[in-house]
């Protein structure tokens, strides 16, 4: 073997440990605190992916114990399908093992360098092996394997293996001994990472046992697994030269034209022929014989040709209703007054499908004079670091939040107010700013989608706030007529030694509206909505009241008898004499859905005369 090759081999051999040491920061191990979070994150991401792929509702137990000074034992256990014994060393003991190049899929695995980096970190800091226990099903034994990574060969080395009894039906547990630091009560902590994970993975139950023995359960909010994202082939618009060269080398296709048609999405054979012809390449040329220059030409030609956008059904959103539930569950102790969520249609940047989902939580005991809390997610994984460099933060800063009821100096920057803003970007290929994968790069299309989605949530927040303000105003009128005015009449009469005058006339002049008040009480899977109406006008009033419902099928009871029930709305005829009160109500089966805000509308009366309902704009 020539000396140069020998040297090259050696260089490669020392490179893994050294590479790790040099790149601690981009790998997420640059501080003791962050290293601990990263290890937990890699293990939990793996567990969630494994459970979902196997169609199992994830039940994950994370335990952190302080073993000695700054040494911690992390153990993450799941109820996934388990890993066959022979594969365990490869999954946990080889850096970059199994990373996909040619097919794209929305997966958590895109983030971070993988669980093997955590294994490597643990052996570099404490010298202790990783302990993996896995069982693949009822009737199978559990295997417990202790392994380290041979940093010279980038290969796993098994230290010890045994068969053990494990009660679990199936699952995997990894135990790592690392140098780290456990922190609480700040955004960059294991607790916050798990809480955020629970919000965007409402189908998972995560149990967390802190070093002091405190146990926290992030309970699942839904018993349905998200749809599995589909793999897609890369789109020519988003492909890089290096990837193209690799694909050319590894393909089984015999001709360049069939290669392009088979390995890319949105490229027909006809288009492929057109491209190679334009690039001046023989369509029958073997892909492996394509030169660097030719490959470059192919990419350039693709840019000049109009192609269909890639398919977008490969993405699996969390969905408005599930994000809402996740947010509600994890902010329960803050009792927020309003939550709104939005899921955009899929979109495309440089041939890469992506989609954006957002949510806003407002009010309750959230601090009023602090910056809003931002929760960033990429493919259901929380992003805890580099907030300032992320397109999500950028998009939030560029919205004028003052229009939606939050404070913001000069209409730019992170807004202030009692709110949490959540943004989830899902894509087959998230464009991170760097290998640390903590911030999404500034891609115009992504920023635009984030902005549009947040504006949608913000508009609803604004509507809610205006409604609230209107109600408050009406409430103060209520206090005026029910307390202050009678007291004024009584005291004035008393002072003048005269009889107390009647005040009904004055009251109807002051109010001069129809007052609509509503409340929803949910109990035992039934939501009961009560609507009270009082006529404070001086004349009898007649109009139609519309109450929105999610679905006609869910109605259990309606009182009094309505004019009509349509699929999405109940219609009553209201007829009230001056000072007369009336109550309307309906009950709905919830079936796991939410019903927390009434949509009330009126027709046949000027809406300025009404407090508590809007003008009906739909079909009469």
């Amino acid at each position, binding site marked *: 073997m020539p000396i140069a090759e020998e040297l090259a081999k050696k260089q490669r051999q020392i490179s893994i440990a050294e590479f790790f040491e040099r790149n601690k920061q981009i790998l997420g191990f640059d501080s003791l605190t962050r290293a601990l979070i990263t290890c937990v994150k890699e293990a939990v991401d793996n567990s969630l992916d494994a459970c979902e792929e196997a169609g199992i509702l994830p039940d994950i137990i994370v335990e952190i114990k302080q073993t000695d000074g700054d040494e911690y034992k992390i153990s993450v256990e799941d109820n996934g399908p388990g890993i066959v014994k022979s594969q365990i060393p490869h999954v946990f003991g080889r850096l970059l093992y199994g990373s996909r190049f040619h097919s794209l899929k929305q997966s958590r695995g895109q983030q971070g360098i993988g669980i093997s980096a955590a294994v490597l970190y643990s052996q570099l800091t404490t010298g202790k092996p990783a302990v993996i226990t896995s069982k693949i099903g009822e009737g199978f034994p559990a295997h417990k394997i202790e392994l380290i990574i041979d940093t010279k060969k980038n290969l796993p080395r098994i230290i010890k293996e045994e068969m053990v009894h494990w009660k679990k039906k199936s699952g995997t547990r990894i135990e790592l001994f690392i140098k780290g630091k456990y922190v609480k009560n700040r955004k960059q902590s294991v607790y916050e990472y798990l809480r955020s994970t629970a919000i965007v993975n409402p189908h998972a139950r995560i149990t967390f046992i802190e070093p002091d023995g405190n146990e926290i359960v992030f309970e699942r909010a839904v018993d349905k697994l998200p749809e599995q994202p589909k793999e897609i082939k890369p789109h020519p618009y988003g492909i890089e030269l290096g990837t193209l060269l690799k694909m050319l080398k590894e393909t089984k296709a015999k001709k360049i034209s069939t290669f392009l048609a088979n390995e890319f999405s949105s490229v027909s054979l006809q288009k492929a022929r057109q491209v190679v012809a334009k690039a001046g390449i023989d369509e029958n040329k073997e892909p492996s014989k394509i030169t660097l220059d030719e490959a470059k030409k192919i990419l350039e030609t693709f840019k000049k040709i109009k192609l269909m956008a890639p398919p977008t059904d490969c993405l699996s959103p969390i969905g408005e209703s599930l994000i809402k539930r996740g947010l509600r569950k994890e902010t329960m102790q803050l009792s927020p007054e309003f939550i709104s969520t939005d899921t955009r249609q899929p979109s495309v940047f440089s041939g890469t499908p992506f989609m954006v989902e957002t949510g806003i939580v407002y009010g309750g005991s959230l601090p009023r004079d602090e910056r809003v809390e931002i929760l960033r997610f990429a493919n259901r994984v929380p992003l805890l670091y580099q907030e300032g460099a992320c397109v999500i933060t950028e998009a939030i800063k560029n919205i004028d939040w003052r229009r939606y009821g939050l404070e913001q100096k000069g209409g730019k920057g992170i807004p202030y107010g009692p709110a949490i803003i959540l943004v989830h970007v899902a894509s087959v290929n998230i464009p991170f700013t760097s290998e640390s994968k903590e911030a999404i790069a500034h891609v115009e299309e992504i920023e635009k989608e984030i902005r549009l989605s947040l504006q949608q949530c913000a508009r609803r927040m604004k509507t809610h706030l205006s409604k609230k303000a209107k109600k408050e105003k009406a409430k103060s009128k209520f206090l*005026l007529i029910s307390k*202050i005015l009678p007291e*004024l009449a009584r*005291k004035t009469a008393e002072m003048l030694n005269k009889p107390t*005058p009647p*005040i009904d006339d*004055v009251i109807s*002049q002051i109010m001069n509206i129809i007052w609509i008040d509503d409340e929803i009480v949910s109990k035992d899977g039934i939501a009961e909505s009560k609507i009270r109406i009082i006529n404070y006008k001086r004349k009898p009033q007649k109009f139609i009241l519309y109450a929105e419902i999610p679905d006609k099928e869910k109605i259990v009871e309606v009182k009094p008898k309505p004019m009509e029930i349509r699929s999405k709305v109940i219609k009553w005829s209201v007829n009230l004499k001056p000072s007369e009160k009336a109550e309307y109500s309906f009950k709905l089966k919830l079936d796991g859905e939410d019903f927390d805000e009434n949509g009330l509308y009126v027709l046949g009366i000027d809406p300025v005369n009404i407090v508590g309902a809007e003008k009906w704009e739909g079909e009469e």
Partner: protein
Amino acid sequence: MSTVKELKKVAEKIYNDLVNGRIPSLELPARTKSNIVFDERYRVWKYGKQNITRSAVSLSGAYMLLRTIYVIDFIKEMIENNKSSTLRELYYISEGWGEAKFNSQDESDKLAEDLEIITKKLREDFKLRPEEDGARVIGDIVIEEVTRKGEKRRIHCQDDVGDAGYSIPYNVEKEKLRFVKVNADKVIAVETGGMFDRLVENRFDEKSNAILVHLKGQPARSTRRFIKRLNEELNLPVIVFTDGDPWSYRIYASVAYGAIKTAHISEYLATPSAQFLGVTPSDILNYELPSDDLSKEDIAALQSELSDPRFQDDFWINEIKLQLEIKKKAEQQALAKYGLDYVTDVYLPEKLAEMGYEV
């Protein structure tokens, strides 16, 4: 008409509104800078014709009306039982008024003023006393005061008082206080206690034959009324000596022209002939006084004074514009730069001479 009758008229207006199905309301002049006009007869600034309506159509208006009735009832009781109370006591008594309770003393003080305006009576008629203790007076004048024992006591405001001087009582009307004999030929009203004490220590009251009155910042009603009586009954010219900043000019304006807050009784409190001595912005330059930079609030106050009708004469416009230009302000006591006696030996004699007084 008696005070009780005037007050009852207010309650009757509200009662009649209710009986006739009208939303109860009261009208009173807007108490703002834009609603003061010069009264040619008295040569003071008074409220103009802009009215505001307190109406029960809004919750805050209804609260005000309810409180008004409670305060009227309270005053009526005091008059009938021959009692009096301080404005602070009025505020605390409202604690027991349920919904009519005041949220701050500022609210109750203002309501008392509102009632003065509506009934054309004075706070004193309502048996309401201010908290403010009287300002101090030193000078060659003999005052006769009726003490709380009902005795008449004569006080010479140089010989019968200590260095702190004679204290002005809250009631300075004729039934309480009379001027018996005066040898002084002018009144110098001084803003700060420090400068007042300096003039006293330097015996400037004797040297310049002046009655020195300590204004104590924005002067109390009794102080202003006291000065006005000195001016009106004894024909003594009044000279005002303050710091050189926009807030001090307002002190002068309230002595000379009436305060915006009490414009309903300006003819009773203001001394239109009062003259401003200094410290003027020109003094800051001419005497090279140590000075501070104007704050944002100072500049805003000066600009507001440029549009204040009380300051619309050449002297004030020029001085205010000068101050905005140099962006400096100075305290009275900055004159100590040239020694403790400079103010009485040089500055005041020069300024008084400029104004045409013999010193």
